[in-house]
């Protein structure tokens, strides 16, 4: 069962993202949206085990609006309709806000 984690809060102000990482499972997908984009450069990102093959995605407009640079080798850039599609291609969704 793959889970889509929608992360909407900055880990610099709340531990929602840290709690998300605690329940992360192999092949899950994380989408950073709204203030979640501030997590792109948070140290918690480095704690994600690369072997777990977690897909990291970010809503392009939300990051660009916040002047958050996107390292496209680490994050794939998506838009809102891709997000809707993801809710269908994963088994369930948890929103961390």
């Amino acid at each position, binding site marked *: 069962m793959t*889970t889509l984690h929608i992360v909407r809060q900055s880990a610099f102000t709340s531990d929602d993202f840290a709690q998300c990482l*605690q*329940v992360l499972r192999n092949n899950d997908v994380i989408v950073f949206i709204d203030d979640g984009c501030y997590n792109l450069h948070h140290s918690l990102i480095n704690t994600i085990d690369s072997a777990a093959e977690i897909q990291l995605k970010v809503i392009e407009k939300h990051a660009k609006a916040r002047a958050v640079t996107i390292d496209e080798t680490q994050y794939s850039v998506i838009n809102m309709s891709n997000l809707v599609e993801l809710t269908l291609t994963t088994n369930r969704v*948890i929103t961390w806000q």
Partner: protein
Amino acid sequence: MTQPLPKLTAILNSKAPYSSTAGKDALDIALIFGSFEQPTSLFFQGDGVWQLSQGQDGTIISVKDYLKTFAAFEFYDLENIYVCQQSLIQRGLTADFHIEQVQVLAQKEFAEKLAIHHTVLRF
């Protein structure tokens, strides 16, 4: 046609009581699911673990104390109650809860238990 496996619902509590309605809202949803006999489990993570501490009394701060309603869980068949051990340790809490049947799980088991639920509602 064999009876399809019922969908498991998880209610994930992450907020402390009193200062927000998150805990009360989660409780209401849990009781509703319970009264419709939907298999439901309760999870407590982060500040959500404060909701289980023994000896709380909302009336002191003139807040309606919804925590007392936790005692009704067994009548609603809400028997699967899981607490994140790491969250307890971080907050210097012991497993001294105001309800019975609470299972304290290490992070890995907590994640695995949550993963078997089809729907997760986070408060």
